[in-house]
C-alpha cells in the first residue's frame, strides 16, 4: 500500500521529467532547421519551444504543488498541446484547441449546463474564434501550413479571428466567471500562453502587414495598462495575482505584434515568466503553521520582491525590459513607454502588500526568477534564438536581439545600433562583489540594530488605496473617505 502511495506521488514528477527531456531533445534536433515528417509531423524551433514550455510548466507544477492539484484534465491538456505543436495539419490544431476547451466544461447536473458553460466561457470563445480563423485557412486549401501556397490563404479575416483567440485568455476572472473548479483551473491557467502558438505560427505562412501588427500591439499595450492598473487597484490578493500574471501575457502579445526578432524574443520570454508566476502563486494566504519557511536571515518578503519585477536581473524585470527595448528598436516608442510604466507600477502591489510569511514554493519561485533573469542570455541563446531564426522570413528588420552569452543582452535597431543593453551576468558578478563589500563593512563597523524587523503590522490594502486615490489624480476617485488622511 505504501509503495502504491509512493508511486502515485512520484508518477507526476517522473512523467513531467520524461516530457521535459523529450522537449529538450526536440529543441536540440530542431535548432538549425525545421524537420518535416509527412504527412502530419512538422518539427521546428517554434513548436519545440512551446513543447518545452508545456513540459517545463508541468515539471515545475508537479515539483512544487501537491499531486491532488493535477487531475486527468491537466495531463490530457499537456499531451494534446504537445501533439498540436508538432504538426502542420491545421484541422488537427483546431480539433486540439476545441477539445481542450471542451474538456474544461465541468460535468454538471441537468439544468446547470449553463453554469458549467459559463465557467469555461473563456476557452470556449477562444476555441470558437480559432476554429473560424484556422478553419478558413484549411477551407481555402492550407490544410498544411507548410504547404508552398499556404501563405496566399492568409488574409485579414483569418488574422482577426486568430488574434481574437489569442487575446481572449488575457481577460482576468470577473465576477461569476471566476472559475472555482480546482480540477479544471490549473491546466487552463498554466497553459494559457498556448493560445499564442496559432498566432505566432502565422509568421510561417507570410509576413504580417502593418495593420495587423498595429492591432496586436495596441491590444497588447492596452491590456498591459488595464491589467497593471487592475492589479494596483484590486482589493483582493487573488485578483491582483491574476491581473499581474496576465500582464505578462499582454506583454507577450505586444511583443509578438511587433513583428521583429526582438519582439518575438520578448514574447517567448514573457510566456516563460507567466508560467513561473502561475506555478509559484499562492492560492491561499500563507500561515506560519502550514507553509512558512525562512532562508538564512532573509526577510520573508524577498521571494515576492524577486517575483514582482522591481529588482533588475529577475525574470519579470527582464521580460518587461525586453519589450521596452523591442518597442524602441522597432520605432514604437509609445509602446516602449507604456511597457516601462507598467514595469514600475506593476511592482507597487507588492510594495503595499508584501506578505509576512513566504512558503517554500515562493522561495523556489524567487530563486528560479533570479536564475532565469541572470541567465537570460543563455535562455535566449538556447531556447528562443532558433525560433527567431526560423521565423525570420515573416519578420521585419526593425529590431533584433543581440545575445552576448557570457555577459548579457542588447536590443538593436535596423541599423544594428544599440537601443538597450543589460549585461545581466556582468551586473550579477558586480552585485556579488558589492554584497561581499557590504558584508565586510558590516563585520568591520559592527552596526547596532536599531529597528526590530519582526512582526510587521497588517495593513488594509483598500484603505491605502483610498488614501492614494486622493493624492494621485489619475487613479480616480476614492470609494469611501478615510478619517486619518493627510491631504498635505
Amino acid at each position, binding site marked *: 500500500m505504501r509503495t502504491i502511495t509512493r508511486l502515485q506521488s512520484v508518477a507526476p514528477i517522473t512523467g513531467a521529467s520524461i516530457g521535459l527531456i523529450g522537449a529538450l531533445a526536440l529543441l536540440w534536433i530542431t535548432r538549425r532547421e525545421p524537420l518535416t515528417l509527412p504527412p502530419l509531423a512538422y518539427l521546428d524551433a517554434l513548436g519545440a519551444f512551446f513543447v518545452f514550455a508545456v513540459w517545463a510548466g508541468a515539471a515545475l507544477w508537479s515539483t512544487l504543488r501537491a499531486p491532488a492539484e493535477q487531475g486527468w484534465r491537466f495531463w490530457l491538456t499537456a499531451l494534446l498541446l504537445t501533439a498540436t505543436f508538432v504538426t502542420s495539419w491545421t484541422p488537427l490544431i483546431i480539433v486540439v484547441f476545441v477539445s481542450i476547451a471542451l474538456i474544461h466544461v465541468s460535468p454538471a447536473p441537468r439544468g446547470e449546463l449553463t453554469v458549467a458553460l459559463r465557467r469555461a466561457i473563456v476557452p470556449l470563445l477562444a476555441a470558437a474564434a480559432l476554429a473560424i480563423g484556422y478553419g478558413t485557412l484549411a477551407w481555402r486549401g492550407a490544410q498544411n501550413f507548410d504547404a508552398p501556397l499556404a501563405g496566399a490563404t492568409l488574409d485579414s479575416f483569418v488574422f482577426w479571428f486568430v488574434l481574437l483567440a489569442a487575446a481572449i485568455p488575457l481577460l482576468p476572472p470577473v465576477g461569476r466567471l471566476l472559475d472555482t473548479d480546482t480540477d479544471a483551473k490549473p491546466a487552463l491557467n498554466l497553459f494559457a500562453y498556448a493560445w499564442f502558438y496559432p498566432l505566432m505560427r502565422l509568421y510561417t505562412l507570410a509576413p504580417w502587414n502593418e495593420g495587423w501588427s498595429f492591432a496586436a500591439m495596441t491590444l497588447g499595450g492596452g491590456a498591459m495598462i488595464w491589467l497593471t492598473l487592475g492589479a494596483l487597484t484590486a482589493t483582493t490578493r487573488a485578483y491582483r495575482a491574476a491581473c499581474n500574471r496576465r500582464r505578462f501575457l499582454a506583454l507577450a502579445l505586444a511583443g509578438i505584434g511587433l513583428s521583429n526578432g526582438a519582439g518575438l524574443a520578448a514574447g517567448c520570454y514573457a510566456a516563460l515568466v507567466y508560467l513561473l508566476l502561475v506555478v509559484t502563486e499562492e492560492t491561499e494566504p500563507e500561515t506560519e503553521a502550514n507553509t512558512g519557511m525562512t532562508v538564512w*536571515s*532573509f*526577510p520573508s*518578503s524577498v521571494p515576492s520582491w524577486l517575483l514582482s519585477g*522591481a*529588482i533588475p536581473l529577475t525574470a519579470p524585470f527582464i521580460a518587461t*525590459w525586453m519589450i*521596452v527595448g523591442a518597442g*524602441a528598436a522597432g*520605432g*514604437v*516608442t*509609445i509602446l*516602449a*513607454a507604456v511597457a*516601462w*510604466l507598467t*514595469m*514600475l507600477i506593476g*511592482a*507597487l502591489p507588492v*510594495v*503595499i502588500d*508584501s506578505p509576512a510569511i513566504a512558503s517554500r514554493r515562493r522561495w523556489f519561485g524567487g530563486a528560479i526568477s533570479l536564475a532565469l533573469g541572470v541567465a537570460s542570455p543563455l535562455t535566449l541563446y538556447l531556447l528562443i534564438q532558433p525560433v527567431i531564426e526560423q521565423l525570420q522570413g515573416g519578420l521585419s528588420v526593425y529590431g533584433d536581439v543581440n545575445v*552576448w552569452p*557570457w*555577459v548579457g543582452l*542588447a536590443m538593436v*535597431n535596423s541599423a544594428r*545600433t544599440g*537601443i*538597450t*543593453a*543589460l*549585461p545581466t551576468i*556582468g*551586473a550579477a*558578478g*558586480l*552585485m556579488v*562583489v*558589492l554584497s561581499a563589500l*557590504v558584508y565586510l*563593512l558590516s563585520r568591520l563597523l559592527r*552596526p*547596532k540594530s536599531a*529597528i526590530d*524587523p519582526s512582526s510587521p503590522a497588517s*495593513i488594509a490594502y483598500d484603505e*491605502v488605496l483610498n*488614501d*492614494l486615490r486622493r*493624492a*494621485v*489624480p*489619475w*487613479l480616480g476617485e476614492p470609494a469611501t473617505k478615510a478619517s*486619518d488622511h*493627510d491631504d*498635505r
Partner: protein
Amino acid sequence: MTIAELLSFLGLAWSRLLIFPGGACLLIAVWIGEMFGQRRRRVGFPPFPTSWLTSPLAASAVALPWLGVALLPLPGAVALSRPIDLIAIVALLEWPRLLAITADLQERDRARGVQRLAAALNSYPPVILSLALLSQGTGTLEVVGLLRIPDSSAPLQQTAWFWLGVGALILTMPPLVEVGPFALDAPDDLRSGLRLRMLGIILIVAMPGMALLTRNGADDWWRVALPPLAVWGALWVFQRSTRHQQALRWARIYLAYNLVLLAALLVAGALALQARLA
C-alpha cells in the same frame, strides 16, 4: 563571445564601484549627506553611518543604487566593454524608495508611506515620457546616449526632441527626488540609500549638461561638477520656495504636464513612423 569578455567587464568595473563614480558618490551621499543632515545637532565630521548595514534589505537599499551610480558613464570614469541602459539604472535607483514605502506602510508611518507612494505614482508617468522623448533625440535608451548631444548635422527634429526631453526631465525632478511639496523624511536605515538614489538621479539629469560643457575635448573637473551642482542648487531653491505648498495641487499640475508630454511623444512617434515609411 567567451568568458574572457565577462572577466574583462568585471576587471574594468572594480574601479567604478570603489573609486569613481561609485565609491565617491557613496561617500558623498552617505557620509557628507549625514554631516549636512545633522549640521544643527553636531559639530565636525560624524562617524560613518552604519544603520543601513543592520539588515539585508536595508543594505540592499544602498547596494543597488550604488551599482546604478557606478555604472553611469560619467566623464572621467573607466570605460566599460558593454553599455547599460536607463531602464536598468532607473530600476536600480528606485529600489530604496520602494523599500521605504513598504517599511513605512507596514511598520512605521502609514501616512508617510502613502505620501511617498503618491509621489512615486505622480512621478512615474512624466519621467517615463520625458526619457522616451529624450530617446527620440538620441536614438537610444542606453545611458551613454545622454552624453551624445545631436550635432549641427543632425536633423532639427532630433535636436528639438533631445532638448525638450532634457527640459522635461528637469521639470519632473520634484516628485522624482521628493523635494518641495513632495519632500518627505526617510526611515533611518534607508536614509543613506535614498540619498544615493537622489544623487544618482541628479547625475543622470546633469549628464547632457556635462556633455555640453566637455564637448570640445575640455576635461576640466569643474565642467563635470558644475551641471550636477547647478541641478542641486535649483532643487534647493525649489525646496525652499515650495515646501509649504500642497502636494495635491502639484499632482494636478503634473497630470496636465503628462498630457502635454504624451502629445509631444505621439507627435515625435508619428513623425518617426512617417520617416520610416517614406
